[in-house]
């Protein structure tokens, strides 16, 4: 048993905003104060006690991540850690090795994460890597927005059979891939890339089934609702990163009105057109729209200046990025499912588009009023590495600090962004929401993101007093499953977290016509497609409903 004593508890879910209280942990759970028995005490005087952080969108495991890792040895050479009696060796900055990923997340106080995009065909790979990310509990989203089985079912003209078949298919795909949620990446646009066709707008029919992105997102949103999935569709929209994409973004948001939806890395989708076709912030209009739609959540995808390794299933977008700086480019078309691309980049404050992107992210964070609707991410490692979270937290909490950063940006940014006019400063309570309580709620994780009785014994304890960046860079203690894993920034213990899956009810059978179609055109047998239970030992299933 562990007692975390005398800390200021920030548990927004349960209405605690820094009250002095003790937190008791036993058997991996938060418990009420026990009548007696042996216990150890952590003296958290002068500290903020928060639930363990919950990462809702990060590219940390699987085929495209490892493609980036292997492709970029220059990313690893100067960032490494030696093995110790309790930890494995590792390296990497924007694409750290799996062990290093777990340690670095834990060192920031994060205890749960979700890999952002896993194609079914390589799901086994993602689970192999997730098993090798220590400490954190982890799940992944299954990529479906360009999947042929999904598109084929969507082309069914009969609305009621279409809806029912899609619901069954989504349930089967989640089970077959041991995925947690439905991911959609550039719906239809990745398929269009393979045909070397041009731009994909919301109503562009996409070969070979002629369905449109609008049909894809609406159909999958309906299926997620019908299945009562704990997390709604997790949507990366069309036209990521393009000036003027705000039109597509607003149209997509309107199309999904009334459906629970998570819009991911919204920063990349919130650009207006500035002078001469350049970038301008569209954040105010997007924020207004989010403020009017409480059924929506989003994560920001905040830009961080410096090196990144962009990686996404959005293959055409990566090809465009490659042409920006002519740096190395990896692409993998994945049969009947999706594509992917990897391009290393450097974001610079002196480059106007990058400066605008940086402002757009912060504007969204500051203009979306309800912190339960927007979460802190860097779309790691696309907009920046997750290790930059403490810096971003300080930018949100400290107006003077933020203004000092504005001075470093390309001067033109003030004409196309309103960030310099925004004076809001996040409170610690709000930080606790956007980094743990909010994502946990959006993910439907009832035992995470809070410290109420019965919650998982995942706790991050930060020293108050210093500036927010220092505070969040080095937690005094991090507790995972009731065990102290980090003390003053150093790993003291390491073990496997649990895989997180979703308990979807269905008969574990693919519809016969789809099975026949798959067998005919896939390069693997259907039997060998379904991810075996061995890859997710001790799977923790979250209920639907």
């Amino acid at each position: 048993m562990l007692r975390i004593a005398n800390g200021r508890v920030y548990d927004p879910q349960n209405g605690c905003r820094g009250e002095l209280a003790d937190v008791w942990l036993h058997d991996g759970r938060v418990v009420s104060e026990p009548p007696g028995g042996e216990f150890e005490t952590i003296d958290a005087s002068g500290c903020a006690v928060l639930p363990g952080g919950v990462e809702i969108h990060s590219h940390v495991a699987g085929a495209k991540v490892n493609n980036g890792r292997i492709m970029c040895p220059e990313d690893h050479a100067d960032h490494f850690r030696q093995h110790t009696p309790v930890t494995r060796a590792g390296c990497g900055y924007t694409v750290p090795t799996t062990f290093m990923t777990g340690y670095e997340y834990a060192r920031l106080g994060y205890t749960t994460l979700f890999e952002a995009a896993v194609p079914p065909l390589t799901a086994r790979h993602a689970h192999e890597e997730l098993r090798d990310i220590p400490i954190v509990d982890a799940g992944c989203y299954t990529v479906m927005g360009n999947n042929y089985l999904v598109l084929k079912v969507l082309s069914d003209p009969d609305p009621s059979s279409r809806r029912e078949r899609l619901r069954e298919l989504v349930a089967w795909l989640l089970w077959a891939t041991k995925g947690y949620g439905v991911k959609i990446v550039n719906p239809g646009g990745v398929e269009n890339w393979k045909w070397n066709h041009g731009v994909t707008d919301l109503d562009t029919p996409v070969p070979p089934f002629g369905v449109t992105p609008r049909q894809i997102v609406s159909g999958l949103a309906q299926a997620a609702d019908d299945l009562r999935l704990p997390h709604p569709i997790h949507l990366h929209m069309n036209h990521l990163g393009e000036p003027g994409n705000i039109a597509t973004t607003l149209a997509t948001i309107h199309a999904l009105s009334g459906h629970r939806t998570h819009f991911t890395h919204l920063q990349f989708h919130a650009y207006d057109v500035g002078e001469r076709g350049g970038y301008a912030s569209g954040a105010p209009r997007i924020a207004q729209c989010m403020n009017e739609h409480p059924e929506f959540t989003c994560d920001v995808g905040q830009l961080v200046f410096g090196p990144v390794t962009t990686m996404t299933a959005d293959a055409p977008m990566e090809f465009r990025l490659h042409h920006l700086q002519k740096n190395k480019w990896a692409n993998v078309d994945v049969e009947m499912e999706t594509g992917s691309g990897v391009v290393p980049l450097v974001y610079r404050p002196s480059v106007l588009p990058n400066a605008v992107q940086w402002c757009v992210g912060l504007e969204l964070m500051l203009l979306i009023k309800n912190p339960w609707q927007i979460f802190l991410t860097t779309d790691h490692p696309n907009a920046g590495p997750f290790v930059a979270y403490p810096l971003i937290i300080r930018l949100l909490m400290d107006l003077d600090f933020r203004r000092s950063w504005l001075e470093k940006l390309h001067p033109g940014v003030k004409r196309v962004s309103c960030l310099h006019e925004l004076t809001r400063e996040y409170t610690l309570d709000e930080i606790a929401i956007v980094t743990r309580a909010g994502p946990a709620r959006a993910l439907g994780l009832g035992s995470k993101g809070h410290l109420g009785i019965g919650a998982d014994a995942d706790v991050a304890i930060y020293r108050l007093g210093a500036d927010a960046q220092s505070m969040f860079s080095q937690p005094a203690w991090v507790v995972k499953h009731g065990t102290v894993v980090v003390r003053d920034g150093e790993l003291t213990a390491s073990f496997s977290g649990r895989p997180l899956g979703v308990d979807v009810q269905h008969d574990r059978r693919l519809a016969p016509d789809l099975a026949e179609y798959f067998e005919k055109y896939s390069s693997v047998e259907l039997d060998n497609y379904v991810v075996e239970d061995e890859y997710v030992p001790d799977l923790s299933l979250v209920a639907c409903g």
Partner: protein
Amino acid sequence: MPDTTSSQVPLENVTPRPTDITVHRSVVCTFCGCLCDDIEVEVQDNQIRKVKKACLIGRNKIMHSQSNSPRPTIQGREVSIADTIAEAARILRTAKFPLVYGLSSATTEAQKELVEIAEILDGNLDNPSSYCHGPGVMARQQVGLATCTLGEVKNRADLVIFWGCNPMESHMRHLSRYSSQPKGLFTGEGRKGRKIIAIDIRPTATTKAADQFIQVEPGTTFETATVLRALVRGLKLGISDDNALVAGVPLRVWRELAEAIKSCKYGVIFFGLGVTQCRGRDLNPEQLSVLVREVNDFTRFYAIPMRGHGNVAGCNQVMGWQTGYPLAVNFSRGYPRYNPGEFSVLGLLGRKEIDAALIVATDPGAHLPQDSVRYLRDIPTIYLEPHNNTTTGWATVVIPVAPAGVAAAGTFYRMDNIPLRVKKIVESPLPSDEEVLRSIKEKIVHAQDC
């Protein structure tokens, strides 16, 4: 899924059978990078009786998988497996600069144990890709690689180029399953609708199966890829005569090829060791990858390395996610460092730097140059292997193991990095690689703790 057919044997079947025959379907063949996963294997009395659908090599591999196991030995003396494990741990923990090498035909589960052992020992870690497709990996680190899965080739490719590879002999079902004959979603005509071109220095079974064979002079991959880049981009070459020879081939042939490349809908180059081991090494796949990249300004065009050993792609993947680097890793400083050449198996052996080796799932006696083998024979070597071969005769410690994909389950990665689960379809009295390695690791750690 295995299904026991004999339990439903109708009564009119009068011939009494000794025991049930179990038919295992969708078995994955572990021989080459194709990882054909449609194999049927009949097992009776825990013996493999029949193998269907596999190629000649695959059938031989599976049929012979249960025979010819080595005996557990230390310096040729037969001992128990427990003794070999203890001796292996002793050798490794007393070594100053050990090498952990192989991995390419082991499951990823076993490969992870090997990475950890190398790390615990502060030793070196390498796999056979360092002298095979390693240059292709290095090229990827320079310029990236645009590629696709084999099912995309089957469903979409209307132009396939085999460059410096001979899959008809090395990956025997490649053409029928993925790259030439199959009728895919948008390639309904199968072979007829695909243009197949082979580039090689000699006629082979593969060049004979192609529509066009471009026979080049040896050592000209870089030159050829460079000329193709220029032609694709419409640059002036400074050669006016269309019959002037480039790599021994008239320029007009390259001009036609460049046109074929630009005008296809979905083209794929499969490149083999003729590209990666050719003069210039990594510069060849690098130039080829840049060509592929630039063609994507016009159409979809990709390259896929024709990976050899069943799970050599997997060992690049596992080393990638666990150490950050796909091959040639050193842990002397307690963290992974990478330097092909310096930490490649042949560099380490050539400089006679290592003083012990743990070798798993490769046959250095058959694969490495004579001087490298001779040096290995001079130092203590621990060798895990399911079959007698050219290394079992001399390795200091020989530990027989159950063959992966037949008597041990686990994960293999296909040449296009698609992971598949290989199955356990028979019982073996021998432990798996993974089990032996875990025991060795635990013994090393235990001794370090004492």
